[in-house]
């Protein structure tokens, strides 16, 4: 569903992503791994429209989305979370979620000023959707809390709920388990699986090998902006190039 061809992004003299070809298949959980500085987050930023590609092509569901602004990418059906959990910190949980209903709602100023029937219906639907999302990620009962007051793991769940409320077909998660203990990681892994069960394709950047091995259908390994391996978790784990990239080959490092 997502096809990336010869994608390149240059920062000054550095090729953060270099001629990358990548396919995300409908319904799978794809993990993207690689050492620090491999270009994983840059890849997500390129797909999400946060930065523009220097060269190459990103197409999603048959449409060329390369260089689209983030809000258009979101509307096209790709949602993402950010590495440092990104929320509307000073707003309440429910306000956070209502904002992410924006791109799937359409009543404009006139409806809002006149409080039209369409406006009221849409507000009801948005609130209902927000309640569903809260329940789905296990945040029900916390509607009125300030997002920034929540513990890290709960914030990550909220970040996922925000992304899901945009009704994506593809969800990109940037290190969702960062800074969490084993129990919390287990909970999030379960949540990611349940997200896939609802028909959403998932791409995830992950550092914990246990998580990668546990949830991925396929794994792509990046190093220095280049794809060095691709395959099932087991295949990738045994690939000598991958081991070299992570541990360093003899002589170097």
């Amino acid at each position, binding site marked *: 569903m997502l096809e990336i061809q010869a994608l390149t992004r240059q920062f000054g003299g550095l090729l953060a992503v270099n001629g990358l070809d990548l396919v995300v298949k409908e319904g799978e959980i794809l993990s993207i791994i690689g050492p620090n500085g491999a270009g994983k987050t840059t890849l997500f930023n390129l797909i999400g429209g946060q930065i523009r590609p220097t060269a190459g092509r990103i197409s999603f569901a048959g449409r060329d989305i390369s260089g689209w602004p983030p809000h258009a990418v979101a509307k096209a059906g790709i949602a993402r979370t950010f590495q440092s959990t990104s929320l509307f910190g*000073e707003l309440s949980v429910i*306000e956070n979620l209502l*904002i992410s*209903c924006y791109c799937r709602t359409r009543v404009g*100023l006139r409806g809002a*000023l006149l409080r039209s029937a369409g406006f009221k219906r849409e507000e009801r639907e948005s609130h209902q959707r927000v309640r569903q999302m809260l329940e789905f990620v296990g945040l029900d009962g916390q509607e009125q809390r300030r997002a920034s007051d929540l513990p890290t793991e709960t914030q990550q769940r909220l970040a996922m709920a925000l992304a899901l409320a*945009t009704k994506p077909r593809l969800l990109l998660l940037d290190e969702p388990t960062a800074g969490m203990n084993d129990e919390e990681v287990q909970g999030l892994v379960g949540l990611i699986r349940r997200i896939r069960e609802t028909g959403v394709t998932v791409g995830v950047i992950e550092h914990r090998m246990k998580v990668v091995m546990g949830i991925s259908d396929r794994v792509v390994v990046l190093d220095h902006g280049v794809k060095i391996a691709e395959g099932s978790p087991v295949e990738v784990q045994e690939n000598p190039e991958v081991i070299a990239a992570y541990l360093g080959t003899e002589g170097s490092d």
Partner: protein
Amino acid sequence: MTARQARWLLTCGLLGLGVAVPALISNTYILHLLVMSCIWAILAVSMNLMLGVTGLLSLAHGALFGIGGYTSALLVVRTGMNFWPALGLAAVAGGLGGLVIGLPTLRTRGPYFVISSLCFGLVVQIMMDKWEDLTFGPLGITSIPVASPLPVPGIGRITFESLPAQYYLVLAVLILAVFLVRRVVDSRVGRAFHAIRVNEDLAEALGVPAMRLALLAFVLSGMIAGVAGSLYAMYITYLNPSDAGFWVSLNGILFVVVGGVGTVAGPIVGAFVMTILPETFRLFEEFRLLIFGLLLIVVIIFFPQGIVGGVRRFWRFARRSPERTTPHA
């Protein structure tokens, strides 16, 4: 009594008081101050939509205020147009001004936006000063007529010659402005405005077209500023380029900050306090600005959320309820 009920009661009480004022106060000077307060409050409501809700500190609002004032005053004085359509066109002109100034300036954020909006505002003011054939230049527009009588079905014609009538006019516009802004803010569009203020990158990633919405906020805010300017010109009966100047923007920001950024009541409270209070300092004549400045510093240091925020904090403290998020605006 819940906080909601308390707020309702307070709103109704203040509205009642606002309506009763001309009957209670015969002193024309005080009534004049109240008229000015209402006009400034409309400007403050407009600036709060930008600063408090969308998080954009515009110094072009003096110019938008001036554009509204010049539009309706020139139409009335030069073409003899009726005041009411001229007021509507002042709103349109203010909105257009917001669009034209917003298109280039909204590509920047933070201090860059502040500076660029200031520059565009100054350009507008210079145009008013130099385009003498149209604007009468630095001499300004004199003897701007009072609002034309308004025919109301069932009641007859309302005239606006008297001070109380003008007071009711500006009060009604203020209430209408607050009401409409509330409805916008309490909708998906308004929530998107908040989202831009709090975390623009995340808002974009969640499908909020930030540039388009910031522009919309600028246009709406410009329309309200234009209306305020039009009422000002009509009430003062005189308008010159300095009424479109930097000091108007600065006062607007002052009202919003002192009253309480991002709250509904804040800009109104700020406009009333900052219009009426300095007048009471007249006794101290040359120390007036000094006292004014000190007061401002005290407010900013001890009440970063302004008067309204301070009152809220006190209220919460008095009730000993735990801190919780308050819905914005």
